[in-house]
């Protein structure tokens, strides 16, 4: 656990900053500060939270926001399955510990390999949880002051953030094909459908990645 806190420490400033960005975006998308902080504490999955706030802020509606966010989090099903064997004890304990599985804690603890260390994962997860929730609180309070995210170029920053998150997932040619397909679908559908729909429809691009398997 302590080792995990140490391993995760270099990520803390980044997660604080990202949490703050989410807080600002959430306020600009008509979230109250409490709603933003509660979301970070319970959902604890950055890209999906940013996606939900982004879709809601663009006028996409609740259903589109929720579906887009949950589709992004479907990856936690296979991710969790790769490390399921390391979780022991009662169901309630496994349920609680499972919430600390995020991309970073999973990767730093050797997720997907035989060396997976649950204690490291828990340590990284706990450290990042506090950074994420704390950062969100800072951003949500600042966000009340900065009501227009375009004022500081924050809209461009979110596009850059999604790009950086995307690059971390482009590990195979199939992933690149799925990404290219998703981008194309979004571009084609944006003028034709209400906001939010292009993001959900982009999942159809998994077929582009799949056929090449």
């Amino acid at each position, binding site marked *: 656990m302590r080792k995990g806190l140490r391993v995760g420490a270099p990520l803390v400033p980044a997660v604080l900053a990202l949490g703050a960005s989410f807080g600002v975006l959430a306020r600009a998308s008509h979230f109250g500060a409490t709603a933003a902080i509660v979301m970070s504490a319970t959902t604890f999955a950055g890209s999906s939270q940013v996606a939900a706030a982004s879709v809601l802020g663009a006028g996409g509606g609740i259903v589109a926001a929720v579906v887009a966010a949950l589709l992004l989090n*479907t990856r936690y099903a296979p991710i969790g399955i790769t490390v399921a064997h390391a*979780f022991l004890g009662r169901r309630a304990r496994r349920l609680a510990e499972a919430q600390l599985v995020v991309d970073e804690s999973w990767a730093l603890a050797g997720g997907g390999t035989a060396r997976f260390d649950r204690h490291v994962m828990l340590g990284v997860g706990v450290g990042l949880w506090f950074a994420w929730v704390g950062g969100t609180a800072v951003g949500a309070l600042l966000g009340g002051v900065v009501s227009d995210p375009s004022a500081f*170029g924050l809209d*461009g*920053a979110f596009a*850059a953030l999604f790009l950086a998150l995307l690059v971390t997932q482009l590990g195979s040619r199939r992933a690149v094909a799925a*990404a290219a397909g998703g981008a194309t679908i979004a571009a084609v559908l944006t003028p034709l459908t209400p906001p939010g729909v292009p993001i959900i429809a*982009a999942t159809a691009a*998994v077929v582009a990645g799949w056929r090449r398997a």
Partner: protein
Amino acid sequence: MSAAWATVIAVGVGTVALKAVGPVGVADRQLPPRLASLLAMVGPAILAALVVSEAFAHGRALVVDARLAGVGAGALAVLARAPLWVVVVAGALATAGVRLLR
């Protein structure tokens, strides 16, 4: 209930359940490999769509504006293997800078 709270609750409950699938539900069983590889493609597809939407969408229109400079600066930072927060700050500064100049 506001749209924000409804979203917070629905996404929260759904995510808790998704994270529990492995450690609580499956234990030692495995997903069929075809399904697992399909699910692994969902992230790249949606994140790419979000890049397009955040960079170019303005309501239902596709526009090129200062945000493109932010994406470009972010891409350069990613290529330079900069940490995530540098990517975000570079994106914000480039977007705000171009907006000031125009």
